[in-house]
């Protein structure tokens, strides 16, 4: 094996590149990224960068020296445009081709958009964050479409900066599909208490010159609009490649998508045996963990590969609240508050799927206490053992 190509130069792609080198691969290692910047970190974009607390430089994932030490064939500012697994070639948007013996796909996601939203902000790249940062401040009216974690974080930052924030959410309760109704309501209340106008059950149909239009025709006016309605996996370049794409690059439990082809990070939909389901996880921690796991499996001899079985983890910072969750929350059957009080922004909720505990989410709880639940989930603990005294 002399040529490995990684497409995607963000957290997952970088983690994969570092792992390959650390584990002794010394052949050609090409890292392709569609953005011109060296690898940078995205979670701070909706937090410290948007608030102006950090300069853009602070988001760099590695120092120039550490990056240079990897000995990469670094192709930045050029997107991948096509893949031909039969000949082992990646075609780039500039018309060039890159041959590979093994390929790792880490092309991430892009924001979903709304009709007419060319005049609206999205928040995915450093440029996006800087553009929005320069336009929010005291007295400015910001309309945020979508009260998911990204929209909620941006609303919190803008509100603290003195902007007048309206947060629009189509669901009756924000994040209910992810965290459950009760927890979603508690998070919603936190926004309302801090002066954000949160309107639920409203569907935005388009962005207009001076605001957004709702399904019933009402126009909600704003000086700036942020569209934060979720993401789409960057898989268009794989059309015609023969790879299976179904809301992400479909992989097995080894993060393998096809012979000699692996995937990691936001773009990868893989089978996680720990939860017995396929999942695609847009969490920062998963990008690094899966980048490392996929890289190791890519290098491994047949039979030496390991299934990727993480307990997912995410965090979100909103106002003075830190939200942390371990596990897989989607599709849960029951939520139980096991510590604290939902009304006081200080609680820990456990999630049941079937007869197992599959996740724990906490707000305002000590991180060490929350992290103890990770192991409980990892050993597939029964619900009645992990959360006793429940009916």
């Amino acid at each position, binding site marked *: 094996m002399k040529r490995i190509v990684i497409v995607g130069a963000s*957290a997952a792609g970088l*983690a994969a590149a*570092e*792992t390959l080198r*650390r584990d002794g691969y010394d052949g050609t290692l090409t890292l392709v990224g569609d953005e011109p910047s060296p690898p940078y*970190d995205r*979670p701070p974009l909706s937090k410290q960068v948007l608030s102006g607390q950090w300069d853009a430089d*602070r988001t*760099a*994932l*590695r*120092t120039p020296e*550490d990056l240079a030490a990897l000995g990469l064939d670094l192709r930045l500012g050029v997107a991948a445009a096509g893949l031909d697994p039969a000949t082992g070639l990646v075609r780039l948007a500039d018309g060039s081709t890159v041959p590979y013996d093994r390929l790792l796909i880490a092309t991430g996601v892009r924001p979903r958009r709304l009709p007419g939203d060319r005049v609206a902000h999205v928040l995915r790249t450093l440029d996006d964050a800087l553009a929005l940062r320069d336009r929010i401040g005291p007295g400015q009216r910001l309309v945020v479409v979508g009260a998911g974690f990204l929209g909620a974080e941006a609303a919190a930052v803008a509100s603290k900066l003195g902007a007048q924030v309206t947060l629009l959410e189509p669901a009756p309760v924000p994040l209910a599909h992810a965290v459950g109704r009760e927890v979603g309501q508690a998070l919603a209340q936190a926004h309302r208490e801090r002066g954000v106008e949160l309107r639920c059950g409203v569907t935005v149909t388009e962005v207009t010159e001076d605001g957004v239009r709702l399904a019933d025709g009402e126009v909600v006016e704003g000086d700036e609009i942020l569209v934060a309605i979720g993401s789409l996996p960057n898989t268009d370049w794989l059309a015609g490649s023969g790879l299976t794409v179904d809301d992400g690059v479909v992989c097995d439990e080894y993060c393998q998508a096809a012979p000699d082809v692996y995937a990691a990070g936001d773009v990868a939909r893989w089978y996680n045996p720990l939860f017995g389901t396929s999942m695609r996880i847009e969490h*920062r*921690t998963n990008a*690094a*963990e899966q980048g*490392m796991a996929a890289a190791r499996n890519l290098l491994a001899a047949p039979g030496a590969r390991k299934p990727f079985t993480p307990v997912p*983890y995410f*965090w979100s910072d909103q106002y003075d609240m*830190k939200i*942390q969750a371990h596990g897989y929350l989607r599709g849960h059957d029951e939520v139980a508050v096991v510590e604290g009080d939902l009304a006081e922004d200080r609680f820990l909720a456990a999630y049941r799927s079937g007869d197992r505990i599959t996740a724990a989410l906490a707000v305002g709880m*000590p*991180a*060490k206490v*929350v*992290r103890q639940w*990770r192991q409980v989930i990892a050993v597939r603990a029964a619900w009645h053992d992990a959360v006793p005294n429940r009916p």
Partner: protein
Amino acid sequence: MRVELDEPKCVAAGQCVVVAPEVFDQRDEDGVAVVLEEHPAAELLDSVREAVAVCPAAAIRLAEL
């Protein structure tokens, strides 16, 4: 080798403690990472490198002395 922690970057995920518990801990009050061994023994370096890689805030660096 010296372990460097950019403390203000730390997001209190505790991933470093999971992979290198001999070298890292978390503060009780806010979960921010604490370096227990600034100059870890050679046999711990692999786990420290794992922590550097897995840190979701790129807050840890292993510097040559």
